[in-house]
């Protein structure tokens, strides 16, 4: 395949990655890495470099629409990102002490369970129980427009959510993957934020997390310019479309897309864990 044809095909795959990445808050890497490795025989290191570019592009292209709509909660994003950064530092320190296959296996089971749990949750039911007192003190409550009306929301179980984000950071430090899925799950399932707020806030956060790790990828030569260029442009276009779709789409449909993508990610990790143990 000539470079021009290869570029066009990668552009199309990256468009799909950006679309799904912005709709789910997972970033485009979930699609890019397996697609490049399995469909095009790209070396895993180049695929990982392209994946981080897809995440950066998805986060950047979706941000303007989400911010204008008031869907990104900056306070929650920055607070949770502190936990993720602490976890990432911890992950880098203990990387050599932890059996990676076991971690992948546990993470895979958590993702598969979460995919089923997320489907059961249905649309945007209002959570029961009192808001978290610390979250209230830190001014994390917010509101956004849904179906033409203003909807207020508050944060539940901030401590548990932050704990999951520390684990997400730890996984990022250990494996370089999966933090987007845990970010959305922590905000959606534990902190009981509306699904669109969870997705948009995760979209903001994954860009920061990816930027923190990008230097290593550039320095080690994992970012191939010829591969990263169509990935970036395709992901940007896909994420732009995805962000516009998310604003209008019903939460129930978005949850189904999220659950399917997370389940596939879980299966991929389970396969990686079994291969690692064998």
């Amino acid at each position: 395949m000539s470079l021009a044809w290869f570029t066009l095909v990668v552009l199309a795959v990256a468009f799909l990655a950006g679309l799904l990445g912005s709709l789910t808050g997972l970033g485009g890497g979930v699609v890019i890495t397996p697609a490049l490795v399995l469909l095009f025989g790209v070396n895993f290191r180049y695929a990982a470099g392209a994946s981080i570019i897809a995440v950066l592009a998805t986060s950047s292209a979706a941000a303007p629409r989400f911010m204008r709509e008031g869907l990104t909660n900056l306070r929650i994003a920055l607070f949770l990102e502190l936990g993720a950064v602490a976890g990432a530092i911890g992950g880098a320190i203990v990387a050599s002490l932890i059996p990676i296959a076991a971690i992948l296996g546990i993470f895979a089971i958590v993702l598969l369970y979460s995919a089923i749990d997320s489907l059961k949750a249905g649309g945007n039911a209002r959570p029961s129980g009192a808001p978290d007192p610390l979250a209230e003190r830190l001014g994390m409550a917010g509101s956004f427009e849904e179906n033409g009306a203003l909807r207020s929301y508050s944060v539940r179980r901030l401590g548990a959510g932050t704990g999951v984000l520390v684990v997400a950071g730890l996984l990022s430090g250990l494996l370089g993957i999966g933090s987007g899925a845990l970010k959305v799950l922590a905000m959606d399932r534990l902190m009981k934020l509306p699904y669109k707020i969870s997705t948009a806030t995760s979209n903001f956060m994954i860009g920061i997390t990816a930027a923190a790790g990008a230097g290593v990828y550039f320095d080690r030569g994992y970012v191939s310019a010829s591969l990263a260029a169509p990935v970036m442009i395709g992901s940007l276009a896909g994420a732009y479309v995805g962000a516009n779709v998310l604003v209008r789409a019903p939460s129930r449909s978005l949850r189904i897309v999220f659950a399917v993508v997370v389940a596939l990610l879980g299966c991929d990790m389970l396969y990686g864990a079994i291969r690692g143990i064998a």
Partner: protein
Amino acid sequence: MSEEKKPDPGGSQRLIARLSYFGVLAIALVVAIGEAINLAASGGAPEDFATFVPRGFGLTRLGSLFAGVRALSGKAVIVFGLLLLVGLQIAKVGTSARLFVRGKDRFYLVASAVILAGLIAGLAT
């Protein structure tokens, strides 16, 4: 749920939205120009992505990157655009910090500063 007016995401949020919008457009243009030069220079020959050859431009070799950009090397222009994309994330956090300076919100100002320091440290290592 109440029937009130549409929520105002706040001045700084709008600023981050504008920064991301125009930043992404400019970066996409840079990368697209680089890719066009790269494709023209390749003469349609396929590139081997199956074998890893470490030849990154590396942040420690920024001088050679800028020399490549000045010489209109397609790959150098693309990598320059990609580094701008990383820089855009730093700008997003920096602009968020501005919101909290204005609001005299010390907790989130410190949080932004810690994340900003983490980002810069991550890029420097």
